[in-house]
């Protein structure tokens, strides 16, 4: 599906913030798509991993901060393992979540749950899931 992007309106401030937080060079990416094919969670994303890098190259960051993709990322590092250019996309995803948490309101995909189900879940899952939305 084609999308119209205005290249004259680069969101420089946001782009700079994401680059600094993640310490990654988006422009190293040449869109081979290995990250997307390696990612186990693309089915839960609205923007696939390689497109996130493309949007950042084009200066389009706001849409990514509002996207559900960073919340679907679990940090399994498949993308970073297979990237031929050494881009650690998991760090970019965390930077996007961090900017979201610092600028916007509640996280995208977390809903209230009944305590009974939560009490059956492993502690490691609860700790990790909570940390993701609190830092």
């Amino acid at each position, binding site marked *: 599906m084609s999308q119209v992007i205005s290249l004259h309106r680069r969101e420089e401030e946001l782009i700079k913030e994401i680059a600094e937080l993640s310490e990654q060079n988006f422009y190293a990416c040449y869109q081979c798509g290995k990250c997307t094919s390696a990612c*186990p969670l693309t089915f839960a994303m609205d923007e696939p991993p390689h497109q996130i890098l493309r949007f950042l190259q084009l200066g389009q960051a706001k849409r990514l901060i509002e996207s559900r993709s960073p919340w679907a990322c679990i940090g399994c590092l*498949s993308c970073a393992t297979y990237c031929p250019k050494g881009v650690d996309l998991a760090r970019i995803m*965390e930077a996007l979540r961090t900017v979201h948490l610092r600028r916007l309101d509640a996280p995208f995909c977390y809903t209230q749950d009944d305590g009974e189900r939560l009490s059956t*879940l492993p*502690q*490691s899952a609860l700790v990790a899931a909570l940390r993701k939305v609190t830092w």
Partner: protein
Amino acid sequence: MSEEKKTFGYYPGCELRNRVKGLDLSARRACRALGIRLKELKDWTCCGGLVPQVKDNYMGFLAPARILVEAHAQGFDELMTLCTFCFNTLRRAAFFLQGHAEARKRLELFLGVEGLPRVKVIHLLEVLRDHVGLDRLRESVQRPLKGLRVAPYYGCLLLRPAQEIKLDNPEAPTLIEVILEALGCEVTDFSSKTDCCGSYHIVTNGQVAGQCSDLILRSAVKSKADMLVAMCPLCQFNLDWRQKQTRTAPLPVVYFPQLLALALGEPVDTLGVAEPAATALSALGSPT
């Protein structure tokens, strides 16, 4: 045979004290059988579960840094872990803190210590490979697990990021395979062995975690495995949970130290193995 009497610090972590006692129990029994001396870290606290991956989040390293400081204060230079979450968090934190002076400075102030110590965080698999060695392991087997077809599942956090963890090849690891073969198992060719189980998506969206687990289970069944061996308490939970949810013919999931202890001659009913794996393993008979 070198009789080096080194004592490793041991950090069990929260899950091993509650839901997955069998993982702790079987690892302790296996280590005792192999002459590996473990001493549990006193008054241990939460590892933190994850390490931060943005530049300015130093406080996220506080939980693992506190454990490293404690381990050093209690006289340990190597700290052994079993849970993949704990292993990944502590090992990555130790790696990060060595290379980041600013982070070290801030955490030292916060923890009230002078100089963060260098403590090596290791996994049971490394103790077996580097301290016991495959030859001695092979000689120690009392009950070879002959005829047992096992799918070796690594998951994601045990191996990645490879440049920090440095345990094995992150794309085509063989460490669990060679150890299982030393125990007499037949290891199946299992293409999803480094795939993610869906991890903590189980908290917020079980269906997402379930879809990830499905791929792994299908791949293991396709490899004609009798059971799947897991390292991580959360992987085991997700894979079991998904099988109950979809009501498929269950593929038993066991923890690696349970197979290890069993091969070393420990009775299966002392290892905290859950059904249906317990029945399958009971059929293997007594030590020779």
